[in-house]
């Protein structure tokens, strides 16, 4: 099954822009992907430092460092926004999505290269605006949920919240454009023979994610615009005094916010599928079930939003519905977990760093998923709402799980992106430090939450001192693991061995491993042809053989 050649992509010339123009004006999906990844690495450091400051304050009862408790609120808010909008989304969708969707489907680039450029720069402008919001007035201390009336002009009179709103508008616009670009690319630019049902699961994951972005982010944009006019132009969408309803904000925010959770974790599902298949040297078990489980998760994700609002006064019938609907998500999610386990079952597993992070992902995601089923119950949630149990739950299920998928993806693809392979020994050490760190950090927070410790408060009664100290020690270990990752990046570029086109052997069957490492500036200018018996995702289905 060698390459057949399809004419028609002669429009790419060999012009290679150099210097700053290569990056600022870039229309190349690999360069833009690289810039997204760098952006997320920078934002992760800022967001990480904020979380370590939070844990430092919480290590002991009493106020140690934050005499200005509004500043603590600002840190909590900015940490959430940074990690969601400027770390996970840029890395997964803008970074790996940009890099590997065209490579995996045999397309020469994204459908709209210039739109790709503006997507990135809108995101970068949003990051700048968000970081500067912390230095305007009293800062946005609203939490990432920005609930009115706390976010209204009466309680946040400065311009900081407006800065935050505009930051999200910019990043949101960038993400919507990026989503449109990805969908058009996947629908129109697949290589001959690469049918939808032969696409690698990472491409499926990004496709479903792009649809979620397309449907959810405009709602956030609308809701934020209403908040902006409420704050500045005297409208009363959310202001009770003018006949508005703050609950409307919660409904709109969570109609966006719950799909947002899946926007973060679906690309991780895709990455984990690629990694587990590669290092188990088997095609993914139940390929179609995996693809449609993601579609199902994406769909159900839009009809469960009010499970974030059980205690806000919604009716009994609404709570019953949202409890049941939320629990249904466990079904497609379970399909995915068991399919990953079945993929590994009987496989000749190679425990390289990406595989270790994939296994770590499974552990974290299952723990977070189980506590999610607990929290889905409206009755139990009345007790747990806004406690550290919720903090532990969502950090396990989406935050740290997503970070593990990202680490896995970095190690999996760094050879393809940079042409240099990471040090396996350093990566293994980093895995264990980080894995132990995050579990010591977040597992005790279940106990604190069950004990009733509220979230978003810089102080707590002495009774919670023990587990808080353990949690902060975990944060310190996590910090070591995080900084070591940045060291490994430097080490890879300085001392890394030259990567082969396919460093992973027979298990790596997707198209990106058929091009040299590092991937050349232009790839797939001659379209690969995927035969009738081939799958882009598994050796037992034939896979795709490199060109002669």
């Amino acid at each position, binding site marked *: 099954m060698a390459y057949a050649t399809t004419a028609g992509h002669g429009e790419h010339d060999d012009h290679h822009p150099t210097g700053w123009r290569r990056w600022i004006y870039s229309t190349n999906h690999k360069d833009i992907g690289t810039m997204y990844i760098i952006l997320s690495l920078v934002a992760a450091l800022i967001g990480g430092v904020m979380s370590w400051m939070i844990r430092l304050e919480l290590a002991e009862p009493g106020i140690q460092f934050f005499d200005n408790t509004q500043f603590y609120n600002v840190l909590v808010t900015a940490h959430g926004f940074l990690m969601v909008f400027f770390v996970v989304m840029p890395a997964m969708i803008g970074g790996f999505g940009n890099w590997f969707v065209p490579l995996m489907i045999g397309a020469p680039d994204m459908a709209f290269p210039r739109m790709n450029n503006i997507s990135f720069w809108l995101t970068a402008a949003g990051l700048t605006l968000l970081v500067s919001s912390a230095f305007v007035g009293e800062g946005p201390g609203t939490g990432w949920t920005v609930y009115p009336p706390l976010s209204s002009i009466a309680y946040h009179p400065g311009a900081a919240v407006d800065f935050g709103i505009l930051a999200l508008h910019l990043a949101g616009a960038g993400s919507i454009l990026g989503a449109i670009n990805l969908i058009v690319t996947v629908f129109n630019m697949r290589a001959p023979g690469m049918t939808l049902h032969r696409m690698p699961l990472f491409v499926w994951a990004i496709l479903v994610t792009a649809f979620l972005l397309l449907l959810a982010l405009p*709602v956030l944009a609308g809701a934020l615009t209403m908040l902006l006019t409420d704050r500045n132009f005297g409208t009363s969408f959310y202001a009770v005094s003018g006949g508005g309803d703050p609950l409307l904000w919660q409904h709109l925010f969570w109609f966006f916010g719950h799909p947002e959770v899946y926007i973060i974790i679906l690309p991780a599902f895709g990455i984990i599928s690629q990694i587990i298949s590669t290092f188990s040297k088997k095609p993914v078990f139940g390929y179609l079930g995996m693809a449609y489980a993601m579609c199902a998760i994406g769909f159900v994700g839009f009809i469960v939003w009010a499970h974030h609002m059980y205690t806000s006064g919604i009716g009994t019938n609404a709570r019953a519905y949202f409890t049941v609907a939320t629990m249904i998500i466990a079904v497609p999610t379970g399909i995915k977990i068991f399919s990953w386990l079945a993929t590994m079952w009987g496989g000749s597993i190679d425990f390289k760093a990406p595989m270790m992070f994939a296994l770590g992902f499974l552990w974290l995601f299952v723990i977070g998923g189980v506590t999610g089923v607990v929290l889905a119950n409206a009755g139990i949630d009345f007790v747990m709402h806004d406690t550290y149990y919720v903090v532990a739950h969502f950090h396990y299920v989406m935050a740290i799980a997503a970070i593990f998928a990202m680490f896995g993806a970095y190690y999996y693809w760094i050879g393809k992106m940079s042409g240099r392979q990471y040090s396996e020994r350093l990566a293994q050490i980093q895995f264990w430090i980080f894995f132990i760190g995050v579990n010591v950090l977040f597992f005790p927070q279940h106990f604190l939450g069950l004990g009733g410790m509220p979230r978003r408060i810089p102080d707590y009664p002495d009774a919670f001192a023990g587990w808080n100290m353990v949690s902060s020690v975990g944060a310190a270990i996590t910090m070591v693991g995080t900084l070591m990752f940045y060291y490994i990046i430097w080490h890879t570029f300085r001392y890394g061995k030259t990567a082969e086109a396919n460093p992973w052997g027979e298990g790596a069957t997707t198209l990106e491993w058929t091009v040299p490492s590092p991937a050349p500036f232009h790839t797939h200018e001659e379209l690969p042809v995927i035969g009738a018996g081939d799958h882009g995702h598994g050796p037992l289905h034939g896979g795709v053989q490199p060109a002669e």
Partner: protein
Amino acid sequence: MSDKAGRDRKKARSAVVLFAIAGGMVGLSFASVPLYRAFCQATGYGGTPRTENVTAPTTITDRRVTVQFDANVNPELPWRFKPVQRSVDVRLGEETLIHYTATNLSDRPLTGTATFNVSPDAAAQYFSKIQCFCFTEQTLAPGQEVSMPVLFYVDPAIAADADARDISTITLSYTFYRTNGDDKNNANSAGVAARSARGGNG
């Protein structure tokens, strides 16, 4: 090259559809404002009582419920605002007139607007206000005291609702807020007009 032109057309068509979807979702988020209000009024969701197209009751039954009255004033509005009676016992379907009184404690004219709510939520759709001062801007001269009537009845249909028939006490709550721009001369404009103006925002 015609092949390429065809592909570009297809790409552009996909992009147009997707942009339309994104634009439509923005539109839907704004449309949700009047939709949400209509939904609340139709179902009593969030304790929204019926105030529109309310006609006089047709039947009166012997079942009685207690209706309590609650009054709140936002601290920015220096008014005293109280119900004249704490509660009344009414028969289902019986038209009842009660009063609140509001007094301007400050030394300048002030305009306020009241919002209202019925608790428990399940009773709200059966709580019908024929006449009330909901959302009407009220301007009080310094020291002026006014009486504010509410004419209501509890719909007998509540006895047939499995979720609401056990309710024996219903609370009607009002909160007065200061209206922005006290110096406007259009105080005491009709509540309906004020409401439809707000509806236009959505």
